[in-house]
């Protein structure tokens, strides 16, 4: 049609696109419900953020995992000190104070969290780690054979073996090595990671990405059709498929910046609040970035899906409810069984695998890190001192929020594949939607 002034078809397309997108954005802006929905979404995420801030500011109570800060015999010398000097733990008449020269009793706090983990990440399949910081292995009166419980030839160390089948590490530890880890240090880090993953997966990809499109995108075409205002737009020289697409653009122009703002806010706050020596945890930005990508794509796909349902049937929104329920189930499934085939038939499943890939790249020690929490200085899965699963604080949250890559591919391949699949889903819904919209009679 337009062949004037050297215009290509693209410039005129572009004009129509911006016109409808701007129109849609203005429509959203003038509606109170838009702001209520976005505001409530922000509020909901902020509530979780508040809990996070509170958790970061609360010292996690230190637990004496190995019990050496106790003073069983009441002689003023804690077990750890007596043990170090070889006196009898149960005899009040035997303590280092009777030595010559007498040794002053050490405060009990010296024997809490005194033997923290000193494992570093390495991607070897078998590692030898662990230093007996407090010397209660090296200096103990145990025979050498017992000091090398794991039979690796070196006394007082820990051997980690990576099991590629289960994707986790086995811990073979000599006694009294790294047996009293720092709960606060571990717990903060674990909670921090769990928060990022949990809020990213359930907060952004599930809660925001389903409910925001449910409110904002369902009516994009349907409301205009029921109120009859679609009459104006469909009387202009523009294909219905384009109207569908450009209305979506307008929707994305509202939702995507919103997600960007909320995501950045959380990234900045958690970056400053997070544990660690550095002022800002720059590395985490990678995870936040993958969360953002996942949320953007999820809102795109859900938006297309719900707009399509709105076109399909006047009561299309009722179909959205079982879909939302299915997606909730899939969200929970992908956090527990990430390799399930069902996930391939969902939207959250693919979105969450983007987040998992991001987390895998930024925190490659995740498997080891969770194992640390589970082992908990030997008190976790092995009943060494007190017997019975005393995982470190934060471990359960992290285990709940974190999941492995379910596709059996590397992180980059998983990300690329997921992005492509989500895009294809969006295009698919758009295509079907515009086909139906095109043959709809507008009464």
């Amino acid at each position: 049609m337009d062949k004037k002034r050297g215009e290509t078809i693209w410039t005129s397309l572009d004009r129509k696109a911006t016109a409808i997108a701007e129109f849609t954005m203005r429509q959203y802006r003038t509606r109170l419900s838009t702001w209520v929905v976005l505001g409530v979404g922000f509020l909901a995420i902020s509530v979780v953020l508040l809990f996070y801030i509170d958790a970061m500011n609360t010292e996690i109570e230190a637990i004496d995992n190995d019990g050496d800060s106790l003073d069983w015999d009441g002689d003023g010398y804690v077990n750890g000190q007596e043990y170090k000097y070889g006196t009898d733990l149960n005899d009040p008449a035997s303590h280092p104070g009777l030595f010559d020269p007498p040794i002053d009793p050490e405060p009990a706090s010296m024997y809490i969290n005194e033997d923290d983990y000193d494992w570093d990440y390495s991607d070897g399949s078998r590692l030898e780690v662990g230093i007996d910081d407090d010397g209660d292995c090296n200096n103990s009166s145990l025979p050498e054979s017992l000091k090398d419980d794991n039979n690796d030839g070196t006394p007082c160390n820990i051997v980690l073996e990576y099991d590629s089948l289960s994707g986790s590490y086995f811990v073979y530890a000599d006694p009294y090595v790294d047996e009293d880890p720092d709960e606060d240090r571990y717990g903060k880090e674990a909670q921090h990671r769990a928060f990022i993953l949990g809020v990213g997966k359930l907060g952004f990809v599930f809660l925001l990405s389903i409910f925001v499109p449910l409110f904002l995108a369902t009516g994009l075409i349907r409301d205009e059709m029921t109120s009859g205002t679609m009459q104006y737009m469909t009387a202009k020289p523009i294909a219905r498929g384009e109207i569908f697409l450009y209305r979506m653009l307008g929707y994305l122009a509202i939702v995507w910046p919103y997600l960007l703002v909320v995501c950045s806010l959380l990234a900045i706050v958690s970056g400053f609040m997070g544990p660690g020596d550095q002022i800002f945890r720059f590395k985490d930005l990678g995870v936040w970035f993958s969360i953002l990508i996942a949320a953007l794509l999820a809102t795109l796909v859900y938006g297309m899906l719900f707009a399509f349902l709105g076109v399909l049937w006047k009561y299309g929104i009722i179909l959205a409810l079982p879909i939302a329920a299915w997606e909730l189930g899939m969200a929970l499934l992908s956090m527990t069984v990430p390799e399930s085939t069902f996930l391939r038939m969902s939207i959250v499943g693919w979105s969450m695998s983007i987040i998992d890939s991001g987390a895998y790249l930024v925190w490659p020690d995740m498997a080891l890190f969770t194992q640390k929490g589970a082992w908990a200085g030997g008190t976790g899965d092995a009943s060494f001192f007190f017997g019975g699963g005393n995982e470190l604080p934060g471990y359960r949250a992290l285990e709940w929020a974190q999941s492995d890559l379910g596709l059996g591919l590397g992180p980059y391949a998983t990300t690329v594949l997921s992005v492509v699949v989500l895009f294809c889903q969006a295009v698919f819904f758009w295509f079907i939607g515009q086909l139906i919209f095109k043959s709809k009679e507008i009464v």
Partner: protein
Amino acid sequence: MIPDLAQEGKAQQQAWVPEAQAPVVMLNNVGKTYGRYQALGGISLALSGGVTGILGLNGAGKSTLFKLLMGKLQPTQGEVRLFGTNPWKNPAPYARVGYVPENENMHDWMTAHEFVSTFARLHGLTRDEAKKEANRVLEFVGLSDVMHKKIGRYSKGMRQRAKIAHALVNDPDLIILDEPLQGCDPLARTTIMNVIRELGRMGRTVLLSSHILSEIERITEQIVILHQGRLLAIGNLHAIREQLDNIPHTIEIECKDAKALAKDVLSLDMVHGLQFPSSSKLKVFTHHLGEFHKRLPKIIVDNEHDVMVINNPDDDLQSILGYLTGGFR
């Protein structure tokens, strides 16, 4: 417009009627049924140029006809052609059409200027061009002083004018107005009628529907009459009336002395009946209305009759509609 198509050879390929000759609106045996209900049954017509009033009672199929033309509905039978193109699933011909739907709902949250310029941009105008065009058409319909106010605050007449403005923004060749005068107060009605008449004078094809007969009569004499989905008549109002020759035309004349006038009137050979409802009233029946009216003034003046009222009660739309639809009720 024409060269574009010709040089691409499309006209020959797709066996289109070359645009210059294609009527603006062409319907060939077009029908539309909703379930069991027939809204339009087999209508054929071709229109171009000037203002045409589409007339019919509520539910006669006027809106359905317009929606078929605008590609909002798919015809159940027949073919619709707009500038020689099928409008269903094909937005191309809308570039030359302006459509004012009957629907009262509008984008209340926009100003009229935003409304018009947004839709102007859908015609491929740039932002600045669209703004300029919006100013122009809003000025044209007389909304320039309130165009930066929200449409939600407009009265019905202003809303109708805003709708007309949005339809005019691409300077269309065909303007379709579905009940543009409904719900307007007399001031707004007069203004809108002037706008429509002016559009017709500018050589646009205007289709206009209404059920208020006197309104259409004031705008145009070119009419299409629909009744229960059927095409009853098309053409000039008076021509239609004159075609209905089996029903004699009635002329009522009021004068001082009806009998005396009757004598003189009888001398005209086209008169074939007289009636005296009262002593000062004369009813003349004729089959040749134009001829009679041409000669009547002379007779009156020459014979110094004192005529107060001449009335032609069945020359208006209402009576024509009555005659035409009478058989179908």
